[in-house]
Each structure stands twice: as C-alpha cells, then as structure tokens.
C-alpha cells in the first residue's frame, strides 16, 4: 500500500498516513544494512578494550622479567632465596629475599587473623541476624570504611595504634612480670612494628571481607534456610551449618582476595611497619615487606641501572608470582566449593 502511494509517507501529520509512513520505513530497514558498520566498529572497540587488559598484564610480566634479568645474571637464585639477610645497598651486599617475604607474610597473616574471622562474623550478623533497618545503616558505613585512602590508615597505625599498643603493653608489664616470675621482663614495642600495620590492614580489609561474604551469604536460597528451619534447626544452626557451608565458595574467594590485598598493601606498611628486613615471627619488631622495600628504593636516590635499583624488579617479580599463585588458588578453591543451585 505504502509503495503504491509514496506521497503519503511524506505527510508528517498524525493519523492513518503517519502509520502507513512508518510501516514503509520498517519494511525498508529490514533489508537495509545501515547498522552493520556501527556493529563492526563496536565489536572492535570492545575487543580492543579487552585486549588492553591482557596486553598490560603481559607488558608488566615482560618488564619485570627483562628488568630483573641483569640482576639474576649477577645474583644466583640460590643466593636470592638462600641468604638470610637482605641488604643490597650495603658492602658486602646481601640478597636474601626471604627476609622481605617473611615480613610480608607476617604482616598479612596478622591482618588475616583479625579481618577474616571478624569479617565473616560481621557478614553473618548482617545477613542472618540484623533487622533490615540495622543492615541499611551498617552496610553503607562499612562500605565507607573501604573508601578511606590507605595513607590515612598508615598514619592511623603509626600515630594512634602504635602508641595505644605501647601504653597497653606498659600497663600490662607488671602483670606479665608476675605471671612469668621474671622481674627483668620489659617487653617493648618498637615505634615501627608489624603488629600495628597488621591491625590497620585488618581494619582496611574488614569491609571487603564483610561485604563480599555478606553478598555470598545472602544469595544462599531462602528455600535452603527454610528446609533447615523445617527440621527444627535454630537460627544459629541454620546460619552456621547450612548457610555458611552453602556460601563457602564465595567466602573462600573473599578471604583470598583480602589476603592478596594485605600482601600487596604498600602505604600502611611503608609508614608503620618500618624498614628493617629480617626473618622474624615477632610482630612487635620493625620489619620490612616487599612492597615497603620497593617504595623505599624507588623514592630514594639509588642510581638507575645499578644492581641496587634492579633489585626492585626482582622483588616485584617475586611479589607478582605470589599474587598470581594466590589467584590461582582462589580460582580452584572457588571451583571446588561451588554448589550449583537452579
């Protein structure tokens, strides 16, 4: 019809004519390929964006490997992982990266000790116990905590947590002396120490753990909870024996993510944990982490190209490998504990 009367499609008024006009347009666009170029362009834009992320990853690996290659020509792997001391700028230099790895894990493990259980318990509270009102207030506050820049946590650790710990330990000293029967016992916390960095990192990662765990607890189907209640389970039994196991995959993932964040955290350890690489398990001492060392050297006046400077790429490579391993572990754990609901 529209074909027979092309004039109608040119009349831009309402009514039958306009309808006819639009019908004509529709039948035209069916055969037209107008959208194709845009589709193709979009495809390439999307593909490019995806490629950028892949290329950056490979770029980082390439830089780390090529930049640290000269270092490993000079220092053997046996020396790198075998020596006990890390003092690349001293004479004679020591390249025992284990001191830095130890410091990193001391801080990360300390942080995990606080943040993982607390985050999970907070998540259980938010998802299973809190009234909707309480949840609506607490969750945004929690997420606000996640938005605080880490440099703030660093200063918080150095200027608030450390003095608090020092005062606390001082007031406990008489008790400790009595309990241990050693009047000469004077435990001290150094100004820079692993513990306050751990606590600050724990506070920093707590919202991450709580928020992610809460998400995975809440997606556990309501039917599963009702099934347990219908068997006579109490709220605690439902939460701990049904909901948490059902959400284990997400909980694991959030744990590993939090530990990765703790391992990679830089500002807090640079400010609060000190710069004395050593192999120790005492959190009251000053230590240095891998990230802390990298910051120290990049900000310092070590000449570019020197072996001292190349160390940061070697350390960076180790850090990168650890992070990749943790991600792989996370993926396999998530797979192992994932339950399919449909």
């Amino acid at each position: 019809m529209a074909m027979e009367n092309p004039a109608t499609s040119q009349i831009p008024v309402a009514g039958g004519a306009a309808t006819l006009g639009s019908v004509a347009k529709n039948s035209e666009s069916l055969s037209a390929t107008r959208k194709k170029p845009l589709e193709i362009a979009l495809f390439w834009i999307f593909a490019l964006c995806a490629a950028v992320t892949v290329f950056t990853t490979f770029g980082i690996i390439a830089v780390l490997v090529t930049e640290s290659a000269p270092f490993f020509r000079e220092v053997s792997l046996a020396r790198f992982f075998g020596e006990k001391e890390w003092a690349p700028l001293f004479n004679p230099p020591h390249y025992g990266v284990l001191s830095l790895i130890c410091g990193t894990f001391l801080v990360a493990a300390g942080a995990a000790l606080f943040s993982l259980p607390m985050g999970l318990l907070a998540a259980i509270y938010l998802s299973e116990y809190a009234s909707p009102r309480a949840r609506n207030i607490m969750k945004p506050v929690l997420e606000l905590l996640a938005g605080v820049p880490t440099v703030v946590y660093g200063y918080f650790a150095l200027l608030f947590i450390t003095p608090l710990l020092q005062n606390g330990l001082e007031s406990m000293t008489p008790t400790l002396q009595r309990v241990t029967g050693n009047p000469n016992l004077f435990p001290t916390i150094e100004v820079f120490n692993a513990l306050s960095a751990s606590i600050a990192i724990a506070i920093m990662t707590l919202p991450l753990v709580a928020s992610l765990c809460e998400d995975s607890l809440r997606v556990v189907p309501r039917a599963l909870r009702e099934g347990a209640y219908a068997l006579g389970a109490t709220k605690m039994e439902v939460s701990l024996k049904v909901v948490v196991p059902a959400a284990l995959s997400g909980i694991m993932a959030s744990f590993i993510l939090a530990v990765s964040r703790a391992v990679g955290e830089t500002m807090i350890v640079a400010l609060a944990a000190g710069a004395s690489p050593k192999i120790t398990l005492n959190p009251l001492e000053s230590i240095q982490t891998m990230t802390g060392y990298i910051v120290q050297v990049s900000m310092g006046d070590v000449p570019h190209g020197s072996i001292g400077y190349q160390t940061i790429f070697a350390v960076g490579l180790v850090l990168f490998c650890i992070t990749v391993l943790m991600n792989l572990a996370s993926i396999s754990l998530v797979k192992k504990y994932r339950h399919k609901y449909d």
Partner: protein
Amino acid sequence: MNTSSLSNLADKAMSESPTRKAETPSARNSTPQFNVAMAAAGEQNATPVIVEAEKINLFYGTKQALKSVSIPFHQNTISALIGPSGCGKSTFLRCLNRMNDLIEGCRTEGEVTLSGENIYTKGVDTVMLRQRVGMVFQKPNPFPMAIWDNIAYGPRLRGIKNKAVLGEIVEESLRGAALWDEVKDDLKKSALGLSGGQQQRLCIARALATKPEVLLMDEPCSALDPISTLKVEELMRELRGAYTIIIVTHNMQQAARVSDTTAFFLLGELIEMGASAKMFTDPSDKRTEDYITGRFG
C-alpha cells in the same frame, strides 16, 4: 457425639484459657467443625483428630491472607488442600508448623492444636514442634552436603551423635522414601548431584528422619516428571499408615488419587471440606464445582 456442647466449645475457643482446654483433650479431638464434611467422611475418618486449626486469621502486614479458617485433620489420613493460586494454601500449611514465624510482619490469630496442645501458646518450642510436624517443599532443597549428612541433619539437631544409630536412621528413612536402592552406594556423595525427583525423595527422607507425626507437603510434585510424581504418590500411600499427611496440590487428579479428604480454599477462606470421593464427584458448593471442573481460577 455431644455435638451442641462441642461446637459451643469451638465457638468460644478464642476467648478461653489454654488450661481450660487442656482439661478436655479427648472431647476436643472429635470436634465436628464441618458437619457436612463429617457426615460424608464419617465412616472413613474413624481415626482421632491429630491436628486442628481453629479460626485462623493470618495477616501479612495489613493484608489478610487467611480468614477464619478451621479444619480438623485426622490421624493417618491424607488431606489435600486445593484452590486457585494465591488463595492461601501454602500460607495455611505453614501455619501448622509455625514456619510463618520466619516471615517479617506476619501475624497469626486463632489456634492450631497438635494432639490437643496449642502450638501458638507462649513457650512452645518450635524446634520440637517442627520435628513432630515435618515439611516438604515445592522445590527440592537438599543441603549442599553428602546424602548421608542431609538425612542425619534432623536427628543430629535432636542430639543423636552415635554414628551407628544415625546410620540406621539414614537407611530406614531412605528406604521409607523409596530412595535407598538408588543411592545406597553413594551416601557420601553430594546430594546436589541427584536428579530432581531423587532430590525430592531425599527431602522426604530427610523429613521422615525426625520421625514426625505429621508431614506437610507443599506441591511436592510440581517440579517433577510424571514418573517421579507417581513414585512420590505411591510413597504417600505407603506412608499413610504411619503418618498424617497434608498436601497442597494444583493437580486435581493427584488430589483425587491420593487423598482421603480435600479442602477447597478461595481468597483466604475455606469454602468446603469433605471426603475426596464426594468433593470431586458431588461438591456441595457451586464455587468448588466451578473450580474442579476448570471453569474458574
């Protein structure tokens, strides 16, 4: 039966004190709430009343979902609840084991007695109640754990720890739910690996493991294929001797096939209740007839 005094008692149920009622449990057990229904089902329902809902009014917030519903359920019978979607069947079923307690803003008036005891009085232990009144849901909801642990879950809540005892309960329950032969070699495997029909029978076994007196089933076959459905129906007939079953179903044939009595709900009200044979051939209410003949809902 002393009909007049008993119905008086029922009328006054709301205002009376629980102690007063506890004095006459045996008399209350045969309260003929529905004279028509009882007349029809009289010969079959010789067993005593085990669960009885009296004047249940239920509100979701301000919205009333059940309006003065009273139904007696006789021991070792199968009762079907039918009615169009949204008429309150599930809501009513969930009243019988207080599952509605879990829903925020849900308020229940009236009373439900289990062997003469009001389950809505203060101090009732919902844990014990739900172990005596088991429930099977519309969608199979096995826990994400081994088959064995799924079945042992309820008995464990009751404090049974002995592995041998639990093992016996597991086998007995799985046999009871006609699933034993299919899973006896895979008891340690995840229950989520079972088929939908097997999962539903697992859920029935899980409910049986607490040895309930009453089994509530909310559309237990709606997610199942015809063969699994038949298996579950067969199972219900077998269980009938030992359990009181109350089932919600949208399947008229199923209600007619398996149930002794049928109750028809409409918009939160109980329209009619009676022997299934009569309900499906000669209902007394026009609305029931319209519904079961498919002219409605």
